[in-house]
Structure formats: structure tokens, C-alpha cells
């Protein structure tokens, strides 16, 4: 019996130890609070790239100028944020502010679950307010749902045309293309080696990238989805643009097929492609790769100047205990001073159209802001349209599928996802 008591005691002790081991790791997590008159705000972002220090510097600058608020920025991979933030915010936990995803379309998921705070109380034109009219109109439109502003741009970028100056010189081309016709001609001329190219005219990516193909469609009046939520991917202009560029890839081998964004960057960095459509974040890497790189506006087609914009939404948790301070932080973040400083340190254009940019390389991206468009903006089903319809469509077209038939099938799928009845 004594033995049994000892054994039982040992087992209970083992159990308690195990429980203690489990609980020791459960106390971490992002939290917020106030102590000593200083309000602590937690911000969760996914800026794991080389631009991360620029965001940290902005937070430090805010903390230095706001002694009553201390902002702490936690940086985690986008996938990790996507897996935990929806449940955290829906249950009143998690950070005070966050960038839920790099895809602005994701804001609908949070609005639907009533997890985010409308920012209307702070919207205005004063210095200490969120001046949404200073953002590019496409951005304000994308972040406004049912008349309420729910997010501000944590960053904003446009896509421009990177080109390898040495390759242009070798091909006898003096300047980067300015029109869509010149663009096509140059892309062909800069492709060397026939069916097994030794040099590609352009490095196009069709997945895991900032979208390049919508620019090619928009240039000549095409689109993917109209303002009414109905597909326009099979309109005459869209099909013609898709058919032209898919033909260039398929028949003229101007770009490899099926590249990710990283593949496309590697190709351009390896001096195997003469041009690439990319954002400001790529400039440093290309220069470090030893390329004499030029940056020019996207060539203009029949529909006028246009490019794609990319923005990361920053939102406030509905249940934050520090709404006033969180709104103050966003007002400051989107203010002229902060945006000018961020643009200078990161090479990104400012999120506002009323901030002057001196650096000519950044100016190329900033000048495109007024005519830049967001990809599948304002559509709750944007991520599904992208992953289930548009990206597969590009894959089919660049592998020889019929443009009109494929676009018709894609239009049908898009209309099912958006609920378009026409």
C-alpha cells in the first residue's frame, strides 16, 4: 500500500510538472495597456522585407514626438498574421492595430466580422486628422465600404518599367519605350536566340507577384471586372491584349512561361532579361546585382497612362481600449511629415499625392499615383478571383490556350464569385 501511495504521489508530481511545462509558454502574446500615464499600442505588421527598418524608423519617430504614447511594432510573416488575426480580432483580443494582409481586398473579411473600427471620427483635412482626400482616389475608394473609411495605406507603391541600359544600347535603342506599340517592338527586338532565348525582352511573372498582366490589359482599354462586379475579362479589348501578350510569350519567346515574381527578379538580376515591370522595392537589389538599371514610366497605350498600385491596409481593432491614441497614430502616419520621411528612407512614393518628392527614381513611381489602379479593388471575392480564376487563366494563355474561349470561361467563373447576374 505504501508503495502505491509513493507511486501515486510520483505520478501526480509528474503530472504537475508536465502541466507547469505546458503553461510556461502560454503567457506570451501581444497586449496593450497603460502605465505611468503612457498608453501602449501594439501594431502587428508583415513587413519582413528589406523595407522593414523604414517602418521601424517611422514608429520610433512617432514615439519620440508623442511621449504619452508608446507604439511597439511586431513584424511577422503574412501567413502567420492571416492565420491568427481574424480569430483574435473577432474575439476582442490581439494587437490594437495591424496590417492584416498585403492584399487590400482582405479588409472585407474583417469588416464582415465586425472586427475593425471605422476611422470616420478622425477623417478631415487638418494636420492631426486622416486626410483621405489626399490619398489617390483609387486607394480611398478601396478602403471605403458602405460610406465608412476602414483602413489607411501603411504604404503605397506603383509599378514602373525597369530596363537594362546596356542591353538597350547593344540593341541600338536609345530610350525606353513610351507607347504600347514601341513596347511590343522593343520587347521583340531585345529577345535574342529564337526558341531557346539567350536574352529575353521582358521578364513577366504570372503568380506570387505584384500583378503585371492587368497593366498590359488596362493599357489598351481592357479590364478584369467592371464597377458593377461583372466580368469584363472577355471584352474585345481585354481579349486582344491578352492574346497579343500571350502570343508574344508563346510564339516569340519574349519571356519565360510560368514565372513567380521572385523568378522574374532573378532573371532580370542575372542579366538575362532586358525589361521588367516592378515596384520601388526592387531597385536596390537590381543595382546591387551590378545592372546599369533605368526606371521609366509604364508605356502609354490607347487608354492613356495607367499602371498598377499596391497598398497594404492598416486597420484598428474594433475592441481596442485606446481608440483615440490609435486614431492619432494613423493620423500622424498618413500625415505629410511622416510620409515625406518614409519616402526618403524607403524609396517608396508617399501615400499622399500632395507630398513633393525630390529623388528622381522615386518621382517616377510618385508621378504615376494619380493614374494608378488597384488590382481587383473593392471586391470581397478578390482573393478567390485571383487564385482560382485570373492566375490560372494567365497560365493557360501563355501555354497556348485560345484567348477568347479561356476568357469566356474565366468570365463565367468570375460572375459566379461576384454574384453578377447579367
Amino acid at each position, binding site marked *: 500500500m505504501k508503495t502505491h501511495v509513493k*507511486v501515486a504521489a510520483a505520478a501526480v508530481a509528474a*503530472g504537475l510538472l508536465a502541466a507547469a511545462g505546458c503553461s510556461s509558454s502560454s503567457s506570451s502574446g501581444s497586449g496593450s495597456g497603460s502605465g505611468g500615464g503612457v498608453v501602449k499600442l501594439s501594431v502587428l505588421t508583415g513587413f519582413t522585407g528589406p523595407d522593414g527598418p523604414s517602418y521601424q524608423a517611422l514608429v520610433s519617430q512617432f514615439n519620440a514626438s508623442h511621449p504619452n504614447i508608446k507604439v511597439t511594432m511586431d513584424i511577422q510573416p503574412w501567413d502567420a498574421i492571416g*492565420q491568427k488575426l481574424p480569430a483574435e480580432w473577432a474575439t476582442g483580443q490581439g494587437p490594437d492595430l495591424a496590417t492584416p494582409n498585403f492584399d487590400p481586398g482582405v479588409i472585407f473579411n474583417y469588416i464582415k*466580422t465586425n472586427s475593425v473600427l471605422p476611422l470616420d471620427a478622425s477623417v478631415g483635412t487638418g494636420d492631426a486628422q486622416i486626410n483621405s482626400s489626399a490619398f489617390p482616389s483609387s486607394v480611398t475608394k478601396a478602403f471605403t465600404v458602405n460610406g465608412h473609411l476602414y483602413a489607411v495605406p501603411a504604404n503605397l507603391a506603383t509599378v514602373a518599367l525597369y530596363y537594362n541600359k546596356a542591353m538597350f544600347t547593344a540593341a541600338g535603342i536609345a530610350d525606353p519605350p513610351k507607347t504600347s506599340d514601341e513596347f511590343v517592338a522593343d520587347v521583340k527586338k531585345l529577345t535574342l536566340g529564337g526558341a531557346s532565348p539567350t536574352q529575353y525582352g521582358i521578364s513577366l511573372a504570372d503568380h*506570387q507577384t505584384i500583378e503585371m498582366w492587368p497593366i498590359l490589359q488596362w493599357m489598351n482599354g481592357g479590364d478584369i471586372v467592371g464597377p458593377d462586379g461583372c466580368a469584363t475579362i472577355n471584352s474585345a479589348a481585354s481579349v486582344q491584349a491578352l492574346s497579343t501578350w500571350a502570343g508574344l510569350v508563346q510564339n516569340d519567346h519574349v519571356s519565360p512561361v*510560368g514565372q513567380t515574381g521572385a523568378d522574374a527578379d532573378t532573371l532580370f538580376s542575372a542579366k538575362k532579361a532586358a525589361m521588367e515591370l516592378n515596384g520601388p522595392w526592387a531597385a536596390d537589389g537590381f543595382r546591387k546585382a551590378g545592372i546599369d538599371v533605368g526606371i521609366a514610366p509604364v508605356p502609354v497605350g490607347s487608354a492613356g497612362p495607367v499602371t498598377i498600385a499596391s497598398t497594404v491596409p492598416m486597420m484598428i481593432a474594433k475592441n481596442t481600449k485606446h481608440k483615440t491614441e490609435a486614431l492619432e497614430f494613423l493620423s500622424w502616419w498618413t500625415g505629410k511629415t511622416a510620409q515625406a520621411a518614409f519616402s526618403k528612407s524607403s524609396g517608396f512614393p508617399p501615400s499622399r499625392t500632395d507630398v513633393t518628392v525630390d529623388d528622381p527614381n522615386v518621382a517616377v513611381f510618385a508621378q504615376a499615383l494619380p493614374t494608378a489602379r488597384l488590382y481587383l479593388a473593392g471586391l470581397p471575392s478578390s482573393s478567390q478571383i485571383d487564385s482560382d480564376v485570373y492566375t*490560372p487563366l494567365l*497560365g493557360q494563355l501563355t501555354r497556348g490556350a485560345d484567348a477568347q474561349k479561356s476568357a469566356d470561361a474565366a468570365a463565367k467563373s468570375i460572375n459566379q464569385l461576384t454574384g453578377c447576374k447579367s
Partner: protein
Amino acid sequence: MAHLAEPAAEAANRSAPRGPERRERGRSPRSRFNPAYLFVAPALLLAAVFIVWPIIQSGWMSLHDWTIGDDSHKWLGFGNYTELFHDSRFWNSLKVTLVYAVFVVVGQVTIGLALAQWLRRTTWYTMLLRSAFFFPTIASLAVTGIVWKFLLDPQVGLVDGWLGKLGFHAQAWLQDTHLALPALIAVGIWKNFGFSMIVLLAGVQGVSKELLEAATLDGAGAVARFRHVTLPALRPAILFCVVIGTVNALQLFDLTYVMTDGGPLFHTESIVMYLYQRGFVDFRLGYASAIAWVLFLIIIAVSVVQLRMLRYRDDD
């Protein structure tokens, strides 16, 4: 052993005092509580909380329209399963997963068996080769995927670079719809054959030398000895490799996520990859749970079939 044990047990029964035995039998089951249960209780508790409960919970979620963050979840019954049945992308991912599993398991066990037979004697160079072949097994799947993606890059990759020097055209291994899955299978086999080799090597080295000598004296050649002596002796080890390899292969995710992201055009999209897409990209956890349950049932069914087909008895 059984013949020896029985008389001893009978003797023990005969010599045991009858009275105390009766009292022992008369005690309530509660008084005969085995303290071993207390030792396994923490582990059982952890398993219940982190394995059994999530399985049950996912089954419950699969019967609802369960979106992450939603306040309420609409009851669908078997609606998610019905949708799954008509979902061509699910069937495609199932086909991709099964093709991958069949080729990888057959490949890794066949190559592992051949290497185990070749490297069964222990010398300095067999030890070196065993270590080299086993190395991919201990490397992380994500790292393996990144390295192979780089090696197979048609523009800057080493494989196409060497093929080009030999006069072959560069192949877009991971971008070509016909080559992507075979390339993934090849990497899967390369990653796993070392594990099969080590398990089977232990089996090969345990084959009775007497039996092999007897077979040789009876005139059996190398092939006949392998087929009629070595192979039957390896049956438990082969079964182990096949079952473990199949269960792993059916859960294919890391490799395809890193190397192809399920592309080109879903040609390498596995079930788990599709589950991830629906659950953690589209936030449809109910539908993703239904996919998980179908995969769970498939793994059970395949494992049962394998155990039946490769069953053995110790006295075989």
C-alpha cells in the same frame, strides 16, 4: 516458449493459497486500481487536448459553414461534403496526391532496398555512402524544396546548365505542366529513399546466415536467395517503410508549397495544399475541415489495405 510457460503457471496456481485468492477476487474493481494509469494520464491528457479534441472539433466544423471570425456558423449537415464531391479541383488534388504517393513510395522502397542489399557489409566506403544517402532524410523539407527549385531553374539552375553543356535543351522542369509532377516525385524519392535504406539495411543484416548458407548448399543462386530467403525476411521492414512512406506522401505539402505553389495550373496541387488554400487563404474552415476528414479516411483506408496485403505472422 508457450509450452514451457503453461506447466509453470499451473504449478504456481496449485501452490497459491486459496483463501487470500478468494479475498482478492472479492475486492471491488476500484481497489485494484493500477497506478500505471496515473503515469500515462498526463500524456493521455495532452493527446486528448491536442489530438483527439481537434479531430472531433474539425469533424463538427466540417458540418458547418465555418468562416474564421464569423459570429455564427450556419449548419450545413453534409453540405460541405456534397460540394466537395462536385469540386473538380478537389478531385484533381486527390489524383495528384495519389500519383505522387504511389510513385514516391514505390521509388523510395525499391531504391532503398537495392541500396540496403548493396551496402549490407560494413566497410569504410559503405559507411560513407550510407551517410551520404541518408543525409537528405534529415534535411528540412522546406530547405530541400528551395535548393531543388534553384537547381531546377531553367534560366540559372545547375541542372539545365549541365544539360546544356551536354547538348540538351533547357527544360522548364517546374513550369511545364508535363514535367512538374515528375520533377516533384523525383525530389520526393531523393528525399526519402535514405530512410527506407536504413530501415531495410537493419532488416537485411538480420537475415539468418544459416538460412542463406542452407539455400546456397541447396544450389540457390544470388537471385533465388534474395527472392526466397531475404525478401520474405524483410516483409515486416518493407511493410513499415510502405505504411510510413504512404502516410507521409499523402500529406504532401511543404515540397509543393515551396517548389511549385501547386502549379503550373494546379498540376502539383496536393490535397493538403488545397486544404490550406480553402482554410487559410479563403478562411473557409468548414470546407477545409471536410477536406481534412476525407484525407483522414483515405489514409486509414490505404493503411488498412496495406496492412492486409503485406500482413505476416512471426511463424511465417
